[in-house]
């Protein structure tokens, strides 16, 4: 009896005052299509393949990203140009297999792969999620913006045969 009275006249009003105060609190809902979500700087979205300033692809098809990939989402086939430079003839990322861990980016010795802030790339068919080299390079236009958003330092090597160490620390 005493416990019942205590709950009616003390615990319940106390609980109700808490819920009433919550009505006026800031809401946590993100109104996504209307309001763009705010990402952490280090957010890992869709992959880019990067280019040098002169337009040459950075990727040399060494396979380190595919080796590092825990989801086996990366497939590549190498080829050589007439002058003997190695490049990726086929470079595909299966974006449904990908877990967006970013280990390909960490593994890459050429700064060729980069995970940006793009996250809206839904498609109607599973096959559309296998991104080819052309599709990954096509995102290159947005690269600067995303590198700024991710607070990245400039590329260490600005062109293919620059092997000097730049001033300051590296990223």
């Amino acid at each position, binding site marked *: *009896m005493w416990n019942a009275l205590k709950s009616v006249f003390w615990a*319940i009003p106390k*609980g*109700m005052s808490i*819920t009433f105060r919550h009505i006026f*609190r800031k*809401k946590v809902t993100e109104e996504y299509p209307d309001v763009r979500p705010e990402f952490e700087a280090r957010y890992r979205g869709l992959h880019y393949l990067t280019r040098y300033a002169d337009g040459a692809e950075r990727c040399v098809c060494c396979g380190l990203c595919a080796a590092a990939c825990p989801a086996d989402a990366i497939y590549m086939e190498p080829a050589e140009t007439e002058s003997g430079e190695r490049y990726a003839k086929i470079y595909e990322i299966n974006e449904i297999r990908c877990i967006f861990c970013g280990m390909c980016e960490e593994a890459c010795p050429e700064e060729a792969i980069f995970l940006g802030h793009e996250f809206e790339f839904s498609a109607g068919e599973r096959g559309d999620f296998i991104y080819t080299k052309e599709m990954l390079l096509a995102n290159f236009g947005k690269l600067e913006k995303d590198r700024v958003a991710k607070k990245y330092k400039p590329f260490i090597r600005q062109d293919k045969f620059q092997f000097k160490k730049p001033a300051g620390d590296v990223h």
Partner: protein
Amino acid sequence: MWLSIIIDVVKVIVIFAALMTMIAYATWFERRVVAFIQSRLGPNRVGPFGLLQPIADAVKLLFKESFLPADSSNKFLFSIAPILSFVPAVLSIAVIPVGNSVTIAGQQVNLIISDLNIGLLFIFAMGSLGVYGVVLAGWASNSKYSLLGGLRAAAQMISYEIGLGLSVVGVLMIAQTFSLAEIVRQQSGSIADWYFFKQPVAFFLFIICAIAESNRLPFDLPEAESELVAGYHTEYAGMRFSVFFLGEYAHMLIVSMFASSLFFGGWAGPFLPPAVWFFVKTVAFMFLYVWLRGTLPRMRYDQLMRLGWLVIFPLALLNVIITALVMLLVGTS
């Protein structure tokens, strides 16, 4: 003669339409307020502030398939159960005064569909009939969850009806009438006339019983999602399901109107028109309903029964006896 019939018909249509609109918006109101309590926004995408959400819901439910379970125990009862729970809840509006009398075209019009001299009993009778819909739905569904929900509903609603009935006896003894219109008129003088101040214990018992009676949290055992899927309406879909839902919200609204008429002076209030005061008080009670839902966890079944029979029933009886004693000593007034 003809004029009074026309006035009556218009009155019925207007009050019924207003009630149905309020039921529709009660769903929106509840979802919004519960969302706010949980730091969410709730439905706000359809129309401004989500105000068109009830219409979108109605359209969706109308176009859904309303199927019968193949192994239903009784297809007729299965179909009729939602109606049996909805109609009595809506009928109760007939004896609730929504405003003072107004004069239209030289005719005095009471803003109450029917000023029954046993209005209060009528509401209780209709409230009890609502049990049939729930119990029959539970049985006719031929599903263990539905049956358990129906059984719980029957036990709970019948137990709490006693507390509900006894709690208003104190008010009735002071008011000396069963007519709700008359009870409201007695409270229309000033705030001090409200029966809430004369019968505070009766009010608290009434509100607890009324929440249990309309199967709302913390007494929503008949549809306890965590144990019974959805209780008695587990097997229902489409329009039949939504009629159950409308019935539940109609019940909540009727109880809100009833409580404000019985204890808080109904339409009585300064400055604003009576119907607006009535609306404000009803919404306040609806808010209380939603607020309690957002605060309290569901009770256990044995706790519910113990509360009903060992706390509320004796307290209500005690309240009646004390009221009688005071009236005997002080004299009736």
